[in-house]
């Protein structure tokens, strides 16, 4: 959770606060999680990421841009390099239009309206491409995982 928030916020203290906010929110509101939903980890990571994105979208765009530009290039690498390459390969198989919206909406945290303005396409098209991209990634990763060693 903290890593997901950190990737959006680029600030360790802000990421820690974000995770605390998520747990506090879930505690107060009653958790929206149930076993039928799937992985608890996936649910919490998406909660943390959504909370972090809400926070940065509330800041001035200039401050956010400056922080992202200053972000360090090196990440701590405890992850599996083979899994990393698998995801990287799945991303390269997206269509050009899908890759554009994933890059802007997911990796840069832009709103749908911002993505639409940046690419000069209707917001409905952005929604359709982003949704199709994630479904395509799921198919790619599921098939690769099933065929893998």
């Amino acid at each position, binding site marked *: 959770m903290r*890593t*997901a928030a950190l*990737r*959006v916020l680029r600030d360790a203290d802000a990421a820690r606060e974000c995770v605390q906010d998520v747990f506090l929110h879930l505690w107060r509101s009653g958790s*929206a999680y*149930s076993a*039928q*939903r*799937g*992985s608890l*980890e*996936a*649910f919490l*990571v*998406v909660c943390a*990421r*959504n909370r972090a*994105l*809400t926070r940065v979208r509330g800041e001035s765009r200039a401050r956010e841009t400056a922080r992202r530009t200053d972000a360090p*290039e*090196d*990440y*701590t*690498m*405890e*992850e*599996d*390099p*083979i*899994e*990393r*390459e698998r*995801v*990287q390969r799945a*991303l*390269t198989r*997206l269509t*050009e239009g899908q*890759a*554009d919206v*994933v*890059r802007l*909406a*997911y*990796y840069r*945290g832009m*709103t*749908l309206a911002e993505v639409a303005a940046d690419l000069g396409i209707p917001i409905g098209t952005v*929604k*359709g491409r*982003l*949704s*199709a*991209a*994630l*479904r395509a*990634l*799921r198919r790619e*990763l599921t098939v690769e995982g099933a065929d893998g*060693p």
Partner: protein
Amino acid sequence: MDPEFHIGDSAELYAAGALDERERAEIDAHVAECRDCLRRLGEAEETILTLERVSVTEPPDRTASVVPLQRRSVASWWLAVATAAAFIVGFVIPHGAPRSNVATLAMIGSHFSHAQFAGTGPAAKVIYARDRSWYYVIVAGSGRYDVYGIRNGRALDLGATQPQGATSELFKRIGKPFDRLELRNRGAALETAAIR
């Protein structure tokens, strides 16, 4: 709840963080009563979890005339590293015997970090053990470069990189916590990587 309403594509938009708080609240209210949509939302969240578990570079901007060299190089290096690791652990059976690779074995056996060299030389990277017990320098191209470890302003010669196909590499097992590594060519410092 409107029985005709289902979240549809909004599952992926929710999981990707593309919806605002009001839109997410509507989805939350719906999935609390619709098991099919709940399952679909869970699947979309699983995809996001997979993306979050690894630090991949974002998809390239294919409309840009220039692709940043550093990002492209990182991806290609990781392909090489992943391939080497695959040989070692037996995921890929090469023609002939698997080659020995001490750097890959060191990475499999310990936690590590990495840093990019910055300066006037070729694209280069150092992968190093968290406990600083080893350093693995990879430089794009087949040139030979002297690698120095810098600690409190004092430089220690770690040796020269050796051409390995499309890259030139040096693996050094040395238990010293350097502040930074320098790549030099004929005594002139070309670029530096900070060790954090």
